C-alpha cells in the first residue's frame, strides 16, 4: 500500500504538471485574444476530458497531502505540544478539518459541474 501511494502521489503530480504545461503553451501558441476564442478552446471535448481528469487527479493528490497534514499535525500527541487542553479535543479538530475539506471539494465540484461541464 505504501509503495502504491508513493507512485500515485508522483504520477498524479506529473499529470497535474502536464495539464499546466498544456494550458500554458496553448496560451502562448494559440490566439486567445477574445473570450470567445478562449471559450471555444477550453470547451472542446478533448480539453474538457483533460480538465476533468486534471481536477479529479488534483483532488486525489490534494486529499493525500491533506491527510498527511491531518496525521502529522492534528493528532492528540502533536496538539499536545501546544496545550494539553487542545490535545483533549484532537478528535473534534480532525472532524472540523475533514468537514472544511469536504465542503471545499463539494463547492468546487458544484461550480465545476454546473458552470463548466453542463456549460450553462
Amino acid at each position, binding site marked *: *500500500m*505504501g*509503495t502504491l*501511494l508513493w*507512485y500515485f502521489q508522483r504520477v498524479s503530480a506529473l499529470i497535474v504538471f502536464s495539464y499546466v504545461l498544456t494550458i500554458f503553451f496553448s496560451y502562448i501558441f494559440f490566439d486567445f485574444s477574445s473570450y470567445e476564442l478562449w471559450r471555444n478552446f477550453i470547451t472542446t471535448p478533448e480539453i474538457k476530458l483533460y480538465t476533468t481528469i486534471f481536477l479529479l487527479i488534483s483532488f486525489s493528490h490534494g486529499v493525500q497531502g491533506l491527510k498527511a497534514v491531518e*496525521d*502529522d*499535525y492534528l*493528532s492528540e500527541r*502533536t496538539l499536545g505540544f501546544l496545550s494539553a487542553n487542545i490535545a483533549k479535543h484532537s478528535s473534534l479538530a480532525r472532524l472540523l478539518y475533514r468537514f472544511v475539506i469536504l465542503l471545499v471539494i463539494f463547492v468546487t465540484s458544484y461550480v465545476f459541474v454546473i458552470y463548466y461541464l453542463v456549460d450553462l
Partner: protein
Amino acid sequence: MEKLNLSIYRYDPSKDQRPYMADYKIESESVGNMMVIDAIRKAQELDSTLTFRRSCGQGVCGSDGVNMNGQNGLACITSVSSVSVMNKLEIRPLPGLPVIKDLIVDMKPFYDQYEKIKPFLSNEEEVDTGHERLQSPEEREKLDGLYECILCACCSTSCPSFWWNPEKFVGPAALLQAYRFIADTRDKQKKSRLKKLNDAFSVYRCHGIMNCTSVCPKGLNPSKAINEIKKELRKIG
C-alpha cells in the same frame, strides 16, 4: 579564567509542575576546549540533583545524547566551543521522547521501533559446508555505514516525522538497521522484512529532510539507507 553560561533543562516529575531552565556559570581555564559532558559535570558539582545519563565518555555507548543549542549530539564528543554561542550553551533532553528526569529521556518508544524491525540475522537454511556463512568482500562492503550505529537516538529524535508519529513511523535509526539486514546476503528474510515496512507510515513517512544525517555523531547516513529501502520496496511492488 573563561566563563560559560550554561542553561540546563530541569524537570523532576515527582516535585515540579512544569519543566524550567536552570542557569549555571562555569568557570575554568579551558572552557572552550572542554567537552559538553564535562561542562554538565561541572554544573552537577554546583547542584548535585542535576541528573544525566553517561557511560563510556568516548562516543561508543551512545548514552549521553542531548540537545545542545538546538542540535542533537553526544555530549562526550562535542566540544563546548563547537556548539556554544557567545559563551552561552542551552542543553535540553533529546526532543520527542518522554522526560524521566532532567536530561534523561525514556527510550522505550525508540526501542519499540528497533524491536519491530527484528534486528538479527534470520536464516533457517542448514549449513553443511563445515564453516560459517561466507560473504564476498563486495557483499561485506555493502554493510559499511550501516552496522556502526550505536543507537544513541540522536537521529530519530531530530526527525519531525518521528516526533509526530513515534508509534507508526519506524524512524531513521531503526530503518538504518532494517536496511543493514535487508542488504546482508546471509539474511533470508529480505522479502518479509520489506513487506512489513510497506505501509503509508513505516518508511514512507520519511520526507527526506535529512536532519538524521546531519546530526549522526558517527557520520552515518540513515537518509540514504531509507532511500535504498524505498528502492527495494518499489522493486517488489
